[in-house]
């Protein structure tokens, strides 16, 4: 795997506070979710990648450039959508996006054309001519996203991109991010607290806690459970089915949505499930491999790191 981000023993201290504490991290192409509780060091890590803060110790390269010395080249190739509600008062939406393009070196007229193109892509209609000061949170998020991609960067850093969006807008934005990654070959680093967003679009997950990388795995690996298990929905009474499974030494847990999750180390688990259904006289409506929920993984990782007693 080609590493786009490569960090080796990175520390960053602000006086007595150690925000990043010996981070080793390799991030490849695709969409990577950056998770962590508040104060974990996510924002510091992002600012360091942008070349805005210098690491205290360690070596870091981003897109092949040294973070310490080549911040400008890095910022030329990335698009950053900040979490903060930052905007330039007095500008219309289209002017704000055009200005972002100009700051990245796109000539003024071309930047205006590109701003309209990107705002069309972001589904901003006539409201693009209104002052940014009058925008709702959702519209400001769109403007920030448009500003981040106006110069066609090869890498996107999105800080809480879906916060403040209604479910429909959130889904649309995630689709756009997915499209940029899958069709345009962009790599994306998403810092968020909304775990379903990560579950929905990310290829890899990085969990930071107390300034350290606690976990860096592909999402597919995290989803895999420790032993073979399935999530089953039946048409008839699920209790009879559960009793039949338990008689066959299969661990059964009922889910709130009316399904059951069954787990067993036995390689003959699927056969056992069908036999139990036959014995209980129920029809299986769906049988899908069970997954670990990201929330469980996140909580267990963060709790474990807190349990070690490490502080910032």
């Amino acid at each position, binding site marked *: 795997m080609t590493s786009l981000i490569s960090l080796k023993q990175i520390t960053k201290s602000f006086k007595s506070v150690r925000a990043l504490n010996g981070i080793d991290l390799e991030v490849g192409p695709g969409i990577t979710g950056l998770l962590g509780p508040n104060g974990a060091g996510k924002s510091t890590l992002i600012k360091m990648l942008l070349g*805005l803060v210098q690491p205290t110790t360690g070596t870091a390269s981003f897109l092949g450039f040294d973070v310490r010395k080549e911040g*400008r080249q890095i910022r030329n190739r990335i698009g950053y959508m900040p979490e903060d509600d*930052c905007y*330039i*008062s007095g500008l219309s939406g289209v002017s704000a996006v055009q200005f972002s393009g100009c700051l990245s070196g796109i000539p003024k007229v071309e930047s205006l054309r590109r701003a309209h193109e990107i705002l*069309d892509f972001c*589904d901003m209609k006539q409201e693009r001519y209104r002052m940014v000061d009058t925008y709702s949170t959702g519209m400001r998020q769109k403007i920030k996203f448009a500003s981040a991609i106006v110069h*066609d960067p090869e890498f996107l850093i999105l800080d809480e991109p879906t916060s403040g969006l209604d479910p429909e807008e959130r889904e649309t934005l995630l689709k*756009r991010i997915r499209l940029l990654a899958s069709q345009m070959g962009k790599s994306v680093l998403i810092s968020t607290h909304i775990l379903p967003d990560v579950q929905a679009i990310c290829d890899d997950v990085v969990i930071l806690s107390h300034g350290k990388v606690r976990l860096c795995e592909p999402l597919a690996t995290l989803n895999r459970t420790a032993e073979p298990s399935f999530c089953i929905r039946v048409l008839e009474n699920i209790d009879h089915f559960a009793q039949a499974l338990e008689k066959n030494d299969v661990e059964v847990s009922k889910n709130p949505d009316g399904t059951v999750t069954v787990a067993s180390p036995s390689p003959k688990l699927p056969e056992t499930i069908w036999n139990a259904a036959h014995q209980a006289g129920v029809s299986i409506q769906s049988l899908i491999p069970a997954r670990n929920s990201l929330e469980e993984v996140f909580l267990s990782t963060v709790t474990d790191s807190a349990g070690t007693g490490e502080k910032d």
Partner: protein
Amino acid sequence: MPINDVGYRSLKSRTESSLFRWLAICRIGVQLALKSKWVKRIMLAAWLPVTYWAAGFFVFEKAIFAEQISGMGQGVDLNQVTSLALTESITNRFSIFPGVDDLQEVLRTGDIPQIRNTAWRWMLMIFFRYPQAITILFLVGFIAPSLISQDIRSRAFLLYFSRPISRIEYIFGKICVPSIFIILVTTLPALCLYVVAILMSPDISTLPQTWDIPMRIIIATFGLVIPTSAVALMLSSLTQESRFANFSWFVVWGLGHGAWLTIVLATSLQMGLPLFDPQVMQSEVVSNWSAISLYNSLGSLQSYIFGFETFAESWRGIVSLFGITAFSMTILYQRVSSPM
């Protein structure tokens, strides 16, 4: 979906040189400043003195021209009667302005090219020091305070610094905004006045006699632009509320000049002479403390640039301006770096 929505496409355009990214910051700053009606009004008002000064150049050139016609065949020197009349008239009307002594001295020589050069320089210096300096005080007070404070308040600095823009470029782009307005109300009208004066003069020979004046105008502009913009932006960078920066800007000017005026008043009372009497103004205490006023320091620098003060006379003002600019730029750089 808009009819012209083409989805996301790769950008094929070439990017501009990174040397001119600050231009985008400057352009947007000017664009936003021009939205204010008050800025437009001040700009308009700033050009009104041009008509008065243009009339001054006209009257001066007319007097010289009439003298040249009557004195044809007798050289180009002013005769003694005209010279004395002009000297007396200037003494009576403009005695409180700086540089009058030099002007009178040159008038007594009767050498027209020298008189023209000195008189033009003097008129332009007064133009810079009085009407335009006061206009700049208000214009910069309206424009500069919001330039950085609003970026801090709305956290827009992240928009700038996540782009290939350095802090120096950001500061330079921002400094250019008040500078452009200062140039529009000082340099441009002063250069226009120079052109008017050339057109009013009898022939093109005035050009070699006064070639140094446009240079002095441009240098005086730099002397005006750099300290004022640096102080205004430093104040803007110290707060998230532009009104506080606005207030501080007027306080910096008012307090310094007010303190100096108090010294002038005290000295005049001590000497038993009227306020602003030349003897009071030339007294050691008043001269030594002149640099506490930003207005006086700028005036002193302009007098030096236009050739009405020697370095020995104006060094306090120049050193004070240099110190203020260096201090302001250091604070400004620190403040712009600190939000990170």
